[in-house]
């Protein structure tokens, strides 16, 4: 039999066979997606763990792999990861530096960083920060942006306070040691850790003083132009998980424990951290929408421009793409 005579029945078989098979075996395969997180595995990432375990990602046609890196923005921009979680303020700086990445959906409705100190010692007016010793991870990230924005709101500069860097994020130990008067930290994390060590604390938050947009989902320009529906599907599945957890934090804790068993070592604190994190997302399930709020982005952009982090060459509209608002 000649090769051509062999080929025809084979082609016929390939064309006919799918129709004979059960429908599940020919359904669309899941799209492999890589998500990069900048912090260590933690209960604050419960929405991603839940979306994986409860099948929200799979229902959206996604098979998500979660990895951790310190260079989320660069790796997402370069297409080595599809999505990431990053600070909005970092997106503004990166985008202005020419890194092709956009903020696509809000995770934290409220800016998570605050100044934290022993109860009764934290000023309520940023102008009273003058002369204090403040511990922060370093001259990068949301903590640094929040600290400078607070100082600016009080009519101060970095030279009016003594700043001590804790690049290993161990500023809690510095505060407990008495090496600093105040520290920057996540409202949903450091206060709980300090209270667990017996220190009752007060907070100076930034929301009312100098609003900045909080962390959110990011994606690279290339993915957003080639497949915006993928970004919408990913953001929607994440939002669904956030809303589910907001309605029942225990579900989120269980998912986090299943993904990161070490979290079970202290379930009580982990649940408290998760509940505080839910407050930062927006609180009630109905208030968590992923919406990118121009009323916060505008002033935040202005603050970063005044502080010299960005030069205004890239407008805020070029830094965001609200994928949840895209038409179907």
């Amino acid at each position, binding site marked *: 039999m000649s090769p051509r005579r062999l080929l025809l029945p084979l082609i016929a078989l390939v064309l006919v066979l799918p129709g004979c098979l059960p429908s599940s075996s020919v359904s669309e395969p899941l799209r492999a997606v890589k998500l990069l997180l900048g912090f260590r595995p933690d209960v604050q990432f419960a929405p991603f763990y839940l979306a994986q375990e409860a099948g929200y990602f799979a229902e959206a046609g996604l098979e998500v792999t979660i990895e951790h890196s*310190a*260079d989320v*923005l*660069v790796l997402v*921009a*370069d297409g080595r990861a599809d999505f990431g979680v990053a600070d909005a303020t*970092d997106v503004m*700086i*990166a985008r202005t*530096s*020419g*890194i092709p990445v956009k903020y696509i959906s809000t995770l934290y409705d409220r800016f998570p960083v605050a100044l934290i100190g022993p109860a009764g010692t934290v000023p309520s007016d940023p102008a009273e920060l003058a002369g204090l010793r403040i511990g922060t991870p*370093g*001259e*990068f*990230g949301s903590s*640094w942006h929040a600290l400078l924005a607070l100082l600016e709101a009080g009519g101060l500069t970095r030279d009016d306070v003594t*700043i*001590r*860097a*804790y*690049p*290993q994020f*161990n500023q809690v*130990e*510095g505060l407990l*040691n008495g*090496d600093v008067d105040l520290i920057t930290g996540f409202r949903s994390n450091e206060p709980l850790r300090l209270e667990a060590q017996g220190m009752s604390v007060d907070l100076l938050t930034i929301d009312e003083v100098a609003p900045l947009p909080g962390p959110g989902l990011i994606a690279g320009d290339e993915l957003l132009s080639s497949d915006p529906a993928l970004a919408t599907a990913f953001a929607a599945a994440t939002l669904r998980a956030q809303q589910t957890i907001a309605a029942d934090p225990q579900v989120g804790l269980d998912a986090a424990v299943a993904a990161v068993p070490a979290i079970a070592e202290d379930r009580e604190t982990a649940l408290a951290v998760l509940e505080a994190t839910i407050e930062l997302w927006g609180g009630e399930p109905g208030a968590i929408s992923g919406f990118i709020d121009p009323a916060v982005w505008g002033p935040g952009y202005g603050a970063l421009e005044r502080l010299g982090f960005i030069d205004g060459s890239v407008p805020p509209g070029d830094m965001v793409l609200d994928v949840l608002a895209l038409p179907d």
Partner: protein
Amino acid sequence: MRRLATTLLSLAAFLVAWKLLTVVTGTPDYILPAPEVVAERALRAIGSGLLWEHTAVTISEILLGLAVGATSAVAVGTALGKSVVIERVLSPYIVAAQSVPILALAPLLDIWFGGGLLARVLICALIVFFPIAIATMVGIRAADPLLREMFRSLGATPGQITARLEIPSALPVLFGGLRVGVTLAVIGAVVAEWAGASSGLGVLINIADQGLFDTPLMFVALATLAVIGIGLHGLVVSIERRVVATS
């Protein structure tokens, strides 16, 4: 002259290979900047004073860490080389200190010593200590036993034997340890800055990477560290040539 020409040729080849890599792969500057982009960024960092501000801090940490680490390492290495009992007692602790990753230990030292220059010098000294101490110990033991016997027969005290025989004969090995030590001192300073510092090249790397998303500036800081390492290594080699030849 010939040596300088070889070095310059090797540097030129490296720069051409680097440039070709960026052109052929089309890698964006935020992943792998081309050499001329890094050079332009270096000029701006030098012009603004930013580079020197951070370099001066790192150099002071390296030199102080090296001084503290090398001095104590030579003293301890000499004791280890001369006394088997001291070696048996101290060796496990020295090896244990060397085995614990300095990256994990550095934040603890930073907290214990209240941050600041002292903590950074200690971290730097700790990483420098081991190769120099071991080199000193090996060198002291390598002294010719016949010469040692001759010194004794001539009535030399233990101190004189150490100063006039053992240390001079240990110098070639000791300088081997120093060559390793100076390059480790550069790493030690950066690790110390990553544990807690407000300035220094390690801090500049963090700021460029995590704060400014300025990859060319990161390369400038890394190149500066490399130049410091090469310079210090060259200095040790030059001193070694003179001292060892004299001894």
